[in-house]
Every structure is written in structure tokens, then in C-alpha cells.
């Protein structure tokens, strides 16, 4: 029987963690962009968009991420497009992230007093300028903690992509534990690696929050 050292386990897990990081980054960036687009559409009050986006948000908030991954994996294939677990996971997590972020940000924008919009309007700023120079900078300050809190959820959520056969940290962990018969040790390492990924994100959020509030006085 082959012996696995702790270093062997860690090394293999670290290799797989790269995919967890990539998937998270894609979900952050893609989800952030789609979420921002949906937010702007919703705020522009184009007829019908509000309800449509509301429904989109409800669908992603009201179903488990696991089902969304399954549906993306098997659903895209139904249209005759060959999907890899990688594409399916990236698509599902991006949409999932966008739905949550757009809703979180909508709440932040809604908390900006109406008078700020009115002042910007009466100064003849157009909609884009009102948003970019008056409302979003103020909303951003409020948005940092809930956004980062959610991004940490996304990092951990990538673990679910293992069920459609995508080899990221969790999937690699179960494969290694099958080979080594040391599940506790392996999963402890997996958990540790997730912590190492998530903790710095929270730290960055804290310093960002301090910096944004520091601007004030």
C-alpha cells in the first residue's frame, strides 16, 4: 500500500484549491457585473424590468444552489450544447451571485434618502450622473459589509460544484480521502484551506469599511 504524507495530501489539495479560487473569482466578477447591470436596469424604471428582475431574484433565492448547478449542467446540454462541469458551475454560480448581489445592492440604494436623488435631479444631472456621482458612492459605503459577507458564502458555495463532477477543493478532498483512508485528516485540511481563503476576504472588507468611513470626517 502506498503511504501518503501530510505534504502529499496538502499539495494535492492546494492544486485543487486553484480551481476553487478561479470559480470564486468568476462568480464574483461575472456575478458582480450582471448584478450591477440588473441594478441599473431596475433603477432606470424601464417598464416591466422591475417585476422581471424581481422574479429572477426570487428564482435564485428560492431554490437551492445545488439544484441550480444540476439544472445548469443538465439543462444547457438539453439545448445541444456540450457542457463541461466547469462551464456549468461557472454559469450557475455567476447567475446565483448576480441575483443575490443585485438584491443586496438594491437595498443599499433604497436606503439613500429620496432628497439626494431630488437634489441631483434639480441640478440637471441625468440619470447616469445621478447614479454615478451621487447615489452609488453613498450606497457603496453601506454595501461593503453585506457584499463581502455574501462573497464569503460564494467561496464556500463553490464546494457544491463537486456534485456535478467538477474537481475543486471539496471534490479533491473526497478523492484523496478515498485513496488515503484518512478522511478526518483530509477534510480537516480542506476546511483549513477554505478558512485560509475566506479569512483574508473578511480582513480586506474590514479595512475597506474603515477607509470608506474615514473619508467622511
Amino acid at each position: 500500500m502506498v503511504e501518503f504524507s501530510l505534504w502529499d495530501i496538502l499539495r494535492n489539495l492546494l492544486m485543487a484549491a486553484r480551481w476553487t479560487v478561479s470559480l470564486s473569482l468568476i462568480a464574483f466578477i461575472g456575478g458582480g457585473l450582471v448584478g450591477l447591470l440588473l441594478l441599473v436596469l431596475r433603477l432606470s424604471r424601464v417598464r416591466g424590468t422591475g417585476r422581471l428582475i424581481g422574479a429572477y431574484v426570487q428564482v435564485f433565492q428560492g431554490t437551492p444552489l445545488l439544484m441550480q448547478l444540476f439544472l445548469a449542467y443538465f439543462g444547457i446540454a438539453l439545448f445541444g450544447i456540450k457542457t463541461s462541469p466547469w462551464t456549468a458551475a461557472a454559469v450557475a454560480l455567476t447567475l446565483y451571485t448576480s441575483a443575490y448581489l443585485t438584491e443586496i445592492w438594491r437595498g443599499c440604494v433604497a436606503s439613500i434618502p429620496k432628497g439626494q436623488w431630488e437634489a441631483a435631479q434639480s441640478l440637471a444631472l441625468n440619470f447616469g450622473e445621478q447614479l454615478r456621482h451621487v447615489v452609488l458612492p453613498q450606497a457603496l459605503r453601506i454595501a461593503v459589509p453585506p457584499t463581502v459577507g455574501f462573497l464569503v458564502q460564494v467561496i464556500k458555495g463553490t464546494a457544491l460544484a463537486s456534485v456535478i463532477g467538477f474537481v475543486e477543493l471539496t471534490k479533491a478532498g473526497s478523492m484523496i480521502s478515498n485513496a488515503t483512508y484518512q478522511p478526518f485528516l483530509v477534510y480537516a485540511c480542506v476546511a483549513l484551506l477554505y478558512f485560509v481563503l475566506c479569512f483574508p476576504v473578511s480582513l480586506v472588507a474590514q479595512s475597506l469599511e474603515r477607509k470608506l468611513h474615514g473619508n467622511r470626517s
Partner: protein
Amino acid sequence: MATAVDTTPAPAHDGIVVGAPPIVDITALRKSYGSNEVLKGIDLKVQKGEVVAIIGKSGSGKSTLLRCVNGLEVFQEGALSVNGKKLMHDSPTAMRELRQQVGMIFQGFNLFPHLSVGRNIMLAPTLVKSRDAATAAAQARKLLDRVGLAEKFDAMPDQLSGGQQQRVAIARALAMEPQVLLCDEITSALDPELVGEVLRVVESLALEGMTLMMVTHEMAFARKVSDRVIFMHQGRVHETGTPAELFGHPRTPELRQFLSSLHD
């Protein structure tokens, strides 16, 4: 009931051009929230340089009327134009044109809390009038000096008193060089000792010939500064005239009751 509508210009005095086309022209304006009609046919013409005070009970529609002038409220019937520019809610370009003619000062100041005082004033001229930063900054300093806050250019709004914030808001509105300034109960949120400093600024604007439409509860101020007073009641212009006429010889029982209620 006395005539509800008076379209004759106020008596001529310095700065008011009689006979010229009105700078604000409101015709048969109606506005409702759902089935509740709050403005029931308003006709009002304001001449360049005229100072108009709008008084009335809360709920009489006076703030709503003011907010219609720069399109913050959408009205269903009638027409409104400022300096010959028609108000068209559906056209962003027309609204941008019109709003450059009209400045507004709010009860709650509404300064942008994330920007310094100077940047608050510079924002709209740089974006809308494409001024470069240096020109806009020089203008902002000049305006701050005019409202007596020259040293506050780099301060943040939350470091200022209410009266100072409102004076910055006036400077911010003036930076767009509007033809008309709308003042919506601009001293109502201020501590009594801060009211004077804001009113003095408004009075100086009136003396310089700025066209002003102000909704106010400061009757003494309205009496002193305005050329014409409009009393609104239940969504209509109920009585209108010079301050001396309106405050000295109210013709309708509603106005008499309103004025006497202020002394209680």
C-alpha cells in the same frame, strides 16, 4: 369667493419687466395622486425678477406646485414652461434643458454628504455645463464668499450647522446660474436662531433681481421681500395680490382664517 386666478403682473418696480413674456408660465395645471386631485387647475405667470411667496395650510398643494416647476412632480394636465422651455417629462433632454433654468433649495438641505462643500457646488457645473475643474472651483469659492462661508470650501457637510448647510445649498443652486430659484420651506428645518442667516442670503438675492418662487411659513419675511403673495387653498390659487393687500386686507374668509390661525 374672490377671483381664484390673477394673471396680471405685479406692480412694476426695479428689475421687473412688465409686458415681457413671463419667465415661469403655468397654464391650467392639474395634478393628482391616484384619485386624489391635489392641484385643481393652476394658472400662474411669474415675471423675470419677481419674488413670489406661496402661502397656505399644509396640504393646500403649495409644495407640490413648486415641485412641478422643475419636474420633480409629474402633472397630468396643463402646461408649464420656464424661460420659453416647455416642461416635457418624457424627454430627458428637455428636462435637462429646463432644469438648468431652475434652481431648487429644499427644506432638508440635501447636500451630498460624501462630497466636500466645494465639490458639492462644483459637481453640477462640471458635469452639466462641462466646466473645467479650475473654473468651477473659482466659481464655487466666489459663491461661498457670497453666502458668507468662504472658509468652508474643504469642509464636509456634516461639519456645518443647519444654517450653514442651507447657505451651501443656495450656493450650489446658484452655481448653475438659474433663471428662477425655487425655495421649498427652506427655513422650516432650522433652529430659530439660524433662520435669520439664511433669510438674509435670500433677501440679498431678491434685491439683486433673482426671480424667486418660495413656499414659506415666514410671513414677516414674505411680507418684506415678496412682490406678490399667493394664497393656496385646497389645490387652487385662492387669493393673490401684493403683500400689503393680502396681509392687510384679506378678501376671503379662508385667508382671514389662515392668517388669524398664525397668531394663535
